[in-house]
């Protein structure tokens, strides 16, 4: 390969920004952090379709209590799950910080209610500890524990978020 070509490729890579860095530093995980109750959680940034302010939803009968119902995201009907209820944290009123995180799980999209967003996180994969094995529902949903400064962040296992508990 000529030098010229190499340069072009390099330039393009730089322009791609994130993807480039991701390729180079393979051990960095990018996450979005958020608060539910008193704890901070995170999900991989690439699994997030979008984050929206709360909109109206429709209750669906005969569902688990943490399924608030379904809502309309640009013509798609998505389930809405209250993470507080799912994690057995006492209910709270929605406020200005409340958000719906729309996550892609397999081929399905679903919305999750969270108290507030914290920040986009970059955590070294090697610093992520395995989840404690307490056999609790909530811990089953946790992929690992990440640390950022003094904070402890539970990284959620996306695939388990839509699993029914039984």
């Amino acid at each position, binding site marked *: 390969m000529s030098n010229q070509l190499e340069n072009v490729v390099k330039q393009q890579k730089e322009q791609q920004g994130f993807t480039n860095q991701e390729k180079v530093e393979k051990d960095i995980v990018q996450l979005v952090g958020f608060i539910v109750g008193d704890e901070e959680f995170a999900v991989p940034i690439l699994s997030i379709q979008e984050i929206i302010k709360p909109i109206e939803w*429709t209750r669906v*009968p*005969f569902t688990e209590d943490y399924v608030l119902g379904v809502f*309309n995201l640009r013509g798609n009907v*998505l*389930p809405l799950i209250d993470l507080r209820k799912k994690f057995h944290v006492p209910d709270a009123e929605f406020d200005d910080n409340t958000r719906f995180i729309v996550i892609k799980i*397999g081929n*399905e999209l679903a919305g999750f209610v969270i108290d507030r967003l914290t920040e986009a996180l970059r955590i070294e994969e090697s610093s992520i500890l395995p989840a404690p094995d307490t056999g609790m529902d909530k811990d089953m949903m946790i992929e690992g524990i990440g640390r950022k400064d003094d904070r402890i962040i539970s990284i959620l296992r996306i695939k388990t978020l839509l699993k029914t508990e039984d």
Partner: protein
Amino acid sequence: MDEMQEIMEDFLIEAFEMIEQLDQDLVELESNPDDLDLLNKIFRVAHTIKGSGSFLNLDVLTKLTHHMEDILNKARKSELKITPDIMDVILESVDMMKALLENIRDNGTDVTDDINIDPVVAKLDAISKGEAVATENEDKAEEEEVEVSDEEDDISEVDLENMSPEEVEAEIERLLKQRAEEDKKLREEMKKENSSENKSESPKEEPKKEKKEEKQVPKKQEPKSTPKKEAQKNVPAKKTSNVEQTIRVDVNRLDNLMNLIGELVLSKNRLIKIYNDVEERYEGEHFLDELNQVVSSISIVTTDLQIAVMKTRMLQIGKVFNKFPRVIRDLSRELGKKVNLIIKGEETELDKSIIEEIGDPLMHMIRNSVDHGIESPEERIAKGKPEVGTIELKAYNEGNQIVIEIADDGNGMDPEQLKQKALEKGLISEKEADMMSDKEAFMLIFKAGFSTAAKITNVSGRGVGMDVVKTNVEKLNGIIEVDSTPSKGSVFKIKIPLTLAIIQALLVAAQEELFAIPLANVIETVRITTEDISAVEGKSVLKLRDEVLPLVNMSDIFKIEKILGMNQYLYVVVLGVGASKVGLIVDGLIGQEEIVIKSLGEYLKGIEGIAGATIRGDGKVTLIVDVAALMKLAKETHSNTIATIAVEKKKKKENPEDYVILIVDDSNTDRKIMKNAIKPLGFQIKEATNGEEALNILKNDSNIDAALVDIEMPKMDGYTLAQEIRKYNRFKNLPLIAVTSRTTKSDRVRGVEVGMNEYITKPYTPDYLANVLKRNLKLS
């Protein structure tokens, strides 16, 4: 390689289509063994498949079809008479052909351990040899393969003038086949510079060429032209016009198109809603006319577009019906019965997805009619009926629905006998049996675990099946009706909607929640008062004309908390699936709307009573009720809930002390003035300083009986508050009284628009306020 793949796919599609037709033709042939047109048609199919198969190196398939062709060729030349026994073998080989083709489709090869063609080939051979001397067929096939490449020379070599008509035909067939094959070969090689006359890129054009040749040859021998040939000429001619005007489209593309149309319909609904809002607000303004025109034209075009796209997905039901003559033939031979199948309305069109789903249930019902319906010939003669039983299968349009009717002139069903049987099996109780109408009794055959066949055959009567039929039909939003007269016969009617994706629905409210009920299942809606409800054994029922309907509150079914007060009137939606009916109490009828069915997704699918969701004009999601499941739930709810009548009556209010009044005003002084005016009468009072606060109080406390509202307020003004309040069903009748210093006429109009019941301008006398309030609370 891709090219090869493409050819293979084309071949398979073509082959499956031909075989479908083949079954029907063969059965027809059995009754008319001398129909040469038919024989020729059948021969052509075997021949085409053989030819293409050999080209694609499908040796097993080629071998099988080759032997079939032998027999058919003999039959064609009247060297062989098709007897039912021979037909059995031919049909068997057709089945094998199908199996092979399926295997090719799935695995790409016709070599498989599962299918052994040798026994059939041996049988075919035996027939061929048993009846006549071996012919030159063997050589012919080989010849064909060799000669594929130089067709042109071939034509000139054949001495057409000296051939008998049959031989000419055989020759035509052979040449045609070569043409088709060469064509394919050409395509494969893709050296398309030669496209002088064979510029066809797709096999669909082959029939055209067929016609061309067809014309050429007879011209050369005009004097010999026989009626037979003319008939043959007609067939391909018809084919040509069909073929040229069709185009094969990937189903996914159509599905995608349908989805887009769905979105468009939703947007259209939304546009209409917005237009209605705007119209109310700016009545009489000039631009409304223009807007109206645009909205209506978009609305019309969308509807037309929807119908047009729906039509592209339509297939003729003949596609399903076609396989039944064969089924009936096989069955009647097996059971020793004589059955004549009459098919009508096979050109009736249905959505592709429905066509795919309806085949199995229909098949089962047809089998059932032959097995249980039609009697044995002896029995029929004894009863004075014609020896041959008749099953009539017909399809026709009825409004927005397609009706498929299966009628037989057989045994019929005796309702009493059915009831007895169901009783024995513990499917119904004695009481239920007594109450049952004949129609309901007929529906018993669809209950799981019910089988009327005294002897269990391998055809039907295993007790599974008819209930599956019903479930399948209901999945398609369809209903089954049964009518029967003992010893005269039975009629089964399956009614299904034209399409699955977009339906007409009735929107109802259960408390604050809206639901869409497919209109096809709504028989009627009635408004009743609580006095109309009677209790039978502690269960509520409604006597409607000469019927007694079980009544269930929708809120009870879906376990919706009851927050609404009792209204004087109740709305009842009478739902019907098959012969059973249920009265569903709802809290409001919103209206009829065209809705697009959307799935709730993998995660929430399969919720009992819910078929899906739709997005309404205002962007909100509304759940669509699965009527069949809802009726099942309703029956459970009905027997579990003793008194299902709406809400327990609220404590009766007679005195001002029983009422809570909400005063909404940002001015402390104004609130005091209002309080002073009404407090002496004994009303309980709550206060809010702005619209937002008032709304929160209302939401959390449903005991408020009326509100006095100022207009000018911070955060949320009185107009907005009124609008917000009226969005809730439970506040629909809440008296709202505007108390304001805004006095212009337009202010008053606005007040009425947003839902204020009264409009009082400041200053006012305490008496006046008190009187207005009392009037609105209907206090004397």
